[in-house]
């Protein structure tokens, strides 16, 4: 109850600062007043196109996040289990991590043109190294004594992975999701803006094109709200799923 109150106070404080800034510190078109943005948001919510755009962005976020989690954890597990494989793959991970997003963007536009594949691919590549390296560090933090115990009792590998590896990796998976959700939203929106054919990023591009600043803010607000809701829902789901691996 108290944490909800603090959360709402934080939001209230943010909105208050916004209004002060828009009215008295820097009045003009760069930061419109809250009322203007609110009206624009209401207008947007009255149009079907915005729901379609939000859904377009949402499925891309979920797909990119799913791919990052599934492939990042499986590959990270393999990399963590084999030092040789990790040493071999590390330069590739470093290269993927170091390549600027704009370079990926150019390649994506050459390869697929404007469309849905580019944003997903870029979000996936941006977040994969983090997921891989976090999982590898999770595997290296595994309690070797538990693995030794399983070896003495000749426990099948499948049960060892389910009961020991997964349990040890849960805090790391939670950390990956924590970092990834917000990042995926941001990257997908940027990629849609630059090489997408539909979604909230494309709507922001269109608003910018017509110099409709309140609409840019309204769309951003919508993206932020959707991002927070997705984050909350995914964390709730993850909390339920990971409950089996929590030590009391």
């Amino acid at each position: 109850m108290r944490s909800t109150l603090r959360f709402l106070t934080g939001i209230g404080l943010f909105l208050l600062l916004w209004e002060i800034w828009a009215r008295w510190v820097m009045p003009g078109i760069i930061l419109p007043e809250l009322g203007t943005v609110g009206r624009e948001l209401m207008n947007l919510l009255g149009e079907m196109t915005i729901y379609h755009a939000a859904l377009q962005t949402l499925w891309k976020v979920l797909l990119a996040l799913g791919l990052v989690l599934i492939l990042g954890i499986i590959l990270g597990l393999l990399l963590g289990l084999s030092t040789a494989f990790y040493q071999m793959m590390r330069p590739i991970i470093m290269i993927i991590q170091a390549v600027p997003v704009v370079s990926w963007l150019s390649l994506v536009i050459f390869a697929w043109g404007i469309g849905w594949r580019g944003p997903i691919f870029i979000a996936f590549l941006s977040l994969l190294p983090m997921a891989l390296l976090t999982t590898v560090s999770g595997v290296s933090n595994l309690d070797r004594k538990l693995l030794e115990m399983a070896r003495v009792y000749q426990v099948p590998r499948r049960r060892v992975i389910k009961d020991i590896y997964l349990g040890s990796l849960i805090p790391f998976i939670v950390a990956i999701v924590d970092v990834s959700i917000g990042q995926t939203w941001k990257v997908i929106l940027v990629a849609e803006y630059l090489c997408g054919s539909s979604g909230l990023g494309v709507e922001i591009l269109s608003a910018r094109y017509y110099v409709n600043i309140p609409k840019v803010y309204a769309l951003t607000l919508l993206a932020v709200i959707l991002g927070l809701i997705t984050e909350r829902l995914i964390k709730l789901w993850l909390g339920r799923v990971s409950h089996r691996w929590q030590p009391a």
Partner: protein
Amino acid sequence: MAASVDIKQICKAYGRLQVIDGWNLSINPGERVAVLGPSGAGKTTFLRMVAGLEQADTGRIQMSTNRTAFVFQEPRLIPWRNVKDNLRFVNPSADISAILQQLRLEGFQDYMPSQLSGGMQQRVNLARALIIDPELLILDEAFTSLDLPFKLTLIRDLLDYWHQKHFTMLMVTHDLKEALYLADRILVLSNAPARILHDFPVRLDEHRSFSDPELLRHESQLLDLMYDQMNKIPPRS
């Protein structure tokens, strides 16, 4: 069925430090063998080699079983699994209630390891070993960290269980009384590089008591023997 263990000329070194130096040993099915020796004499290394967790540099270990249970010095329970699931981890098809009753753990099956005292965790460690119906049970200073009343009841429970199943037992301990209470053969080791100095037979009734004068006589005999034998060993060049 109980396991037999046959050890021929095993040696083990860590770098330049020779830990085990040419051990020969035969353990018959159903025998209870305790290993006593100074710290760093390779006792745990020896148990780990028998359990297949480490390889001997030379020599060989032959066993008539692959159903070996190991009661580690620390409980090694899976922290995110309750007692019942920790036992099921090593044997999903076992009758858990019987072993819980045998080791006085009824009512604790849904407890998480962090909710149990150190003594109870060690009890679960032992239950996990016994639930696979072992042919060879290895105990590595399994009762060292327990307070005396807890230790005594757990040792008694283990011995009661052995009387029902007659598996082979191989244990390492620093406690002479514990060794005399549980074992029917005690191996006394030298300092590293460890050699078996003496193979001491325990000639006591099967149903033993810590206050039995005969057990106490064995204890002083064993102590004399340990000091005497260790003084006879010339320093290695």
